[in-house]
C-alpha cells in the first residue's frame, strides 16, 4: 500500500500546498482546502485499522505519508493526526474526528476527569482533539477535546503553533488503559518518529531545491553546479538526506506493534543532526536569495530548525542509546545494534 499512499499524498499536496498557502498559514489562516482533501482521501486515518474506522494501512506504509508532510511543509497537524489515529487503533479505540494532536500530561485523572497541563502541543489551538497519557499507577490513554482547554499560544521557528493546553476537571471523550505493550513514553517516541520522517522529507525538498538552483544559477560564466566545491556540498546534502530517510523508515518498520525505542532513538538522533547540516548546506548553495522571505527555501529550513528539537533533540536521544550501550558492555553491543 506504500506506493499507493505516496502517489495519493503527492497528488493531493503538490498542487494545494503552495508557498502562498504556507505563508497565509503562518499568519494564522487554517488551510481548509488542504485538510478537506486530506480527509477526502482518507490520509489522516491511513494507518488506523478498519475496525477503528481507519483505512487499515500498516504503520510502515504510513512512513511515506509522514515524510511527504515534511517534504511539502504542510501547515497542519497531518503527521500528528496520522500518529494519533494509529495509536488509538493500537488501543482498540475509534479514530478521532478532524485534526488531532498529542502532548505529554502533567496532572491527575480522578473521578473520570482530567486536570493538568500539556506543554508544547503541536497545533493545539487548531486541533479538535489531543491524545495524552495520564501518569500514575494505572496509566490511561485519553482523548481530550482541545476546545475545553485554556490555551497559552506559542509558535516555533516555522510559526507552527506549539501551545500549552490546561484542562480543569475535563471528562475525556475516550479513555482506555494504556495497552501493556505501550510504554509511558509512547507519545514522546511516536512524536520523535514522525518528526524524523518529516525531517527526511524536508531534506529531500532542500536537495531538490539546491540542485535545481545549482544547475540554473550562473557565475563566472558557468552554472555554479559545475564547480567542485558546490558539487561536494550537494553530495553531502544528499548523504544527509539518505541517512535520515533510511533511519526514519527503519523506525516505522520496526514499530508495527508499537513505537520501538531503539530505532526511534537512532532515527531522531540521525535526523536531528542531518537537519542542521542540511539546512546549512542549502542556505550556502542558494546564497542571498535563499535568505529572503520571497524565496520558499525558508519554509523548509525553519521547520527543520524546530523539528530537530521537538520530541527530544539529538543529545536527548543519543544519550539514551549511549546509556543502553554502555550498560550492556561489549558483549551486548553488537546484538543490541542489530536487534531491530
Amino acid at each position, binding site marked *: 500500500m506504500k506506493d499507493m499512499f505516496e502517489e495519493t499524498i503527492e497528488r493531493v499536496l503538490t498542487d494545494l500546498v503552495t508557498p502562498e498557502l504556507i505563508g497565509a498559514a503562518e499568519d494564522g489562516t487554517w488551510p481548509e482546502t488542504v485538510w478537506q482533501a486530506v480527509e477526502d482521501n482518507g490520509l489522516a486515518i491511513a494507518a488506523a485499522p478498519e475496525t477503528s474506522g481507519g483505512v487499515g494501512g500498516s504503520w*510502515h506504509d504510513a512512513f511515506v505519508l509522514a*515524510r511527504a508532510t515534511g517534504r511539502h511543509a504542510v501547515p497542519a497537524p497531518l503527521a500528528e493526526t496520522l500518529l494519533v489515529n494509529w495509536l488509538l487503533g493500537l488501543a482498540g479505540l475509534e479514530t478521532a474526528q478532524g485534526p488531532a494532536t498529542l502532548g505529554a500530561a502533567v496532572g491527575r485523572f480522578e473521578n473520570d476527569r482530567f486536570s493538568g497541563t500539556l506543554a508544547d502541543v503541536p497545533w493545539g489551538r487548531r486541533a479538535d482533539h489531543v491524545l495524552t497519557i495520564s501518569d500514575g499507577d494505572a496509566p490511561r490513554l485519553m482523548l481530550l477535546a482541545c476546545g475545553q482547554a485554556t490555551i497559552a499560544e506559542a509558535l516555533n521557528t516555522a510559526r507552527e503553533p506549539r501551545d500549552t493546553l490546561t484542562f480543569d476537571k475535563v471528562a475525556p471523550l475516550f479513555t482506555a488503559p494504556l495497552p501493556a505493550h505501550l510504554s509511558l513514553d509512547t507519545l514522546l517516541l511516536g512524536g520523535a518518529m514522525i518528526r524524523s520522517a518529516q525531517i527526511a522529507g524536508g531534506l*529531500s525538498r532542500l*536537495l531538490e531545491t539546491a*540542485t535545481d538552483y*545549482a*544547475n540554473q544559477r550562473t557565475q563566472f560564466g558557468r*552554472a555554479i*553546479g*559545475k564547480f*567542485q566545491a*558546490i*558539487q*561536494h556540498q*550537494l*553530495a*553531502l546534502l*544528499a*548523504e544527509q*538526506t*539518505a*541517512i535520515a*530517510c*533510511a*533511519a526514519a*523508515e*527503519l523506525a516505522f*518498520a520496526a514499530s508495527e506493534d508499537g513505537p520501538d525505542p*531503539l*530505532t526511534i*532513538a*537512532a*532515527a531522531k*538522533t*540521525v535526523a536531528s*543532526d542531518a537537519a542542521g547540516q542540511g539546512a546549512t548546506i542549502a542556505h550556502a548553495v542558494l546564497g542571498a536569495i535563499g535568505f529572503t522571505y520571497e524565496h520558499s527555501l525558508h519554509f523548509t529550513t525553519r521547520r527543520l530548525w524546530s523539528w530537530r528539537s521537538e520530541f527530544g533533540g*539529538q*543529545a536527548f*536521544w*543519543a*544519550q*539514551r*542509546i*549511549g*546509556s*543502553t*550501550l*554502555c*550498560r*550492556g*558492555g*561489549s558483549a551486548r*553491543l*553488537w546484538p*543490541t*545494534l*542489530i536487534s*531491530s
Partner: protein
Amino acid sequence: MRLTDFVHARIPADAEAFRTEIRTFLDREMQGIAPIVRADSWMGYDDAFSRKLGAAGLIGITMPKRYGGREAGAFARYVVSEELLAAGAPVSAHWIADRQSAPLLLRYGTEEQRERCIPGIVRGETYMCIGMSEPNAGSDLAAIGTRAVPARDGWVLNGCKIWTTNAHRSHYMIALVRTQERSDERHGGMSQFLIDLKAPGVTIRPIRDLSGEEHFNEVFFDDVALGRDTLIGTEGNGWQQVMAELAFERSGPERFLSSMALFHTLVDAIGPEPDALQAFQVGRIGAKLIALRAMSLAVTAQLDAGQDPAWAASCVKDIGTALEQELPEVAQLLLATEPRVDSGGDHARVLAYLTQLAPSFSLRGGTREILRGILARGLGVR
C-alpha cells in the same frame, strides 16, 4: 538522490538463519582472541582460519552448488559478513575472493576459469587480489598504462600495479590493464585478466604502511606470458566490468564496521555509567551504525534484484568510512587513555592501532572525493 534509493529491506528469514550458524562457528574459533588481533578486522590475515571457515561451508555461500557453494542469496552472505566483521574475525585471506572475485568470475569468466578458481575460493584455499591502481593512476583509474599485447598464445603483459592489498599472499590477481592504446574514448581499450602470481616475470614487493605492517604491495610485470584463457569477459569491456564490481565493494558492512573492535573496547573502558558526554557520543555513533546498516541492507536488496546501485553504494561508503574514521577521534576525546603500541590495556592498544589505520579507510576502494563526484553526477550537476 531519489526517495527510492534507500527503500527499507528486511533480512529474509532463510538468510537470518545463517546467523546462528556463523555465531556458533565464531564462538568456537574466536575464543581467547585478543582485542588487538580483532582490531585488524578484514585486514587480519589467517589462512588457517579461512580454511576452517571454508570447511564449515561459510565462504562463497552464494556460489552454485557445482562449485561447492550453497546457492544462498545476497542477504545470507550479508549476515555471515557482518557477523565476521563484528567479531573482528581474521578474514583478510579470503575476503576479496569471496566478495568480488568469485561473483565476477561467475558473471564474466569462462567455465575453465570458474573451475580453476571458485571451488578453491569456496574452500578458503584460493586467495585473490585486485590490481587496479598504478603509480600514475590512482583516483584517475582510466589513466592506467599496464599493457597486454597480443602474442602467439595469448598476451604478453608489461607494467606495474601498486597498493595491491594481499598481493604477497594471494594466488591470483584480477587486474585491469590496457589492451588498446589510450584513445579519445577514455573508458575504452581496457580488459580484465586472471593472472597467476607464480608466473615467471611477476615480482611482488610489499610496501610497509605507516604502522609498520605489510598489507599492500607493488607488483611488477616483466614480459609475463598470459594464456588465451586468462582474459575475463570481453576484451575492451574491462572498465564496465570493474564498475559493476564496485557496488559490491562499496556498499557492504566492511565500509562501516572496520572500527568495531574500538567501539567494543571503548564501551568497556567507559563502563556501565557513562557521563553525559560519553553517553552522547557513544549513542551518536550507535545511531549512525544502525542507520548505515539500514542503508547497506537497502543496497543489498538492489544488488540482489540485479540492479546497479552505484550511486547508493557510494553514499554508504562515504558516510560509513567517515564514521569508521570518527571512532578513534571520539575515543581519544572521551577518555584519558593514551594510545600504546606495545603495552597498556586492550583499549590503549586498539586505540593506537586503529588511529593509525583510520586514514586508509577513506582511501581504499575509492577516495572520498571520487565518491562525492559520483554522487554529484547522480544528482545531475556534473
